[in-house]
């Protein structure tokens, strides 16, 4: 399944001074995967396109992660 966020588990020492973040994430937005934009992609309505910052859902990248699994907070 395609996801725009990837996760990894960094090493945590028992002597780390800060409370450990056990799972870290990084963004992998759609432009990394698409290559040349294919013709006839599905389009947002004009209003939705302005809100999203792009005309095409295939390029839309919500941030923060809508699944709410961000590690940083």
């Amino acid at each position: 399944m395609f996801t725009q966020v990837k996760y990894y588990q960094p090493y945590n020492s028992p002597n780390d001074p800060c409370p450990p973040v056990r799972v870290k994430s990084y963004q992998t937005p759609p432009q990394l995967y698409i290559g040349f934009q294919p013709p006839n992609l599905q389009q947002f309505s004009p209003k939705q396109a302005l809100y999203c910052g792009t005309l095409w859902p295939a390029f839309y990248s919500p941030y923060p992660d809508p699944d709410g699994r961000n590690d940083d907070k």
Partner: protein
Amino acid sequence: MWYYEKKLQYPVRVGSCNPQLAKYLIEQYGGADGELSAALRYLNQRYTIPDKVVGLLTDIGTEEFAHLEMIATMVYKLTKDATPEQMKAAGLGAHYANHEHALYYENAAGSAWTATYIAAKGDPIADLYEDIAAEEKARATYQWIINLSDDPDLNDGLKYLREREIIHSQRFREAVEILKEERDRQIFF
């Protein structure tokens, strides 16, 4: 030449006076990966790149100035009526001493913008790869500022700007593919 449209590319709303957030946001105004660096980098590269991608650099470089204007509006609104005490508490005391409420091309740490932030190698692939990297770095900077910000109105604009970095990166990646393609080569059967 350019035509100027007297409106912002995307509406800017700021929820509260927050000079602390302005201090972080100024990174996108006069920082290494900010909108000024981006605009000047792309527009300057146009002269020494194959004709096929000159228009793309013009379009994206121009849009970066529209983003610069949005960031300026955000920073201005965040600091507009802040007292000297509020500026000092936000770490902007030194800025206030030099600039009062004026905007300045500097990064979040207060270092003035410098042309050494941008490169022009003259090699089309090297320059476009630089541009892709610049877009990804600007995207990351928007992420970190969104993480620092607790102003939902402001974040709406920042999320829009982050998405535009993604589209720009996509277009630069396509430009590299255009230059790689062997379209002009003779084909023999």
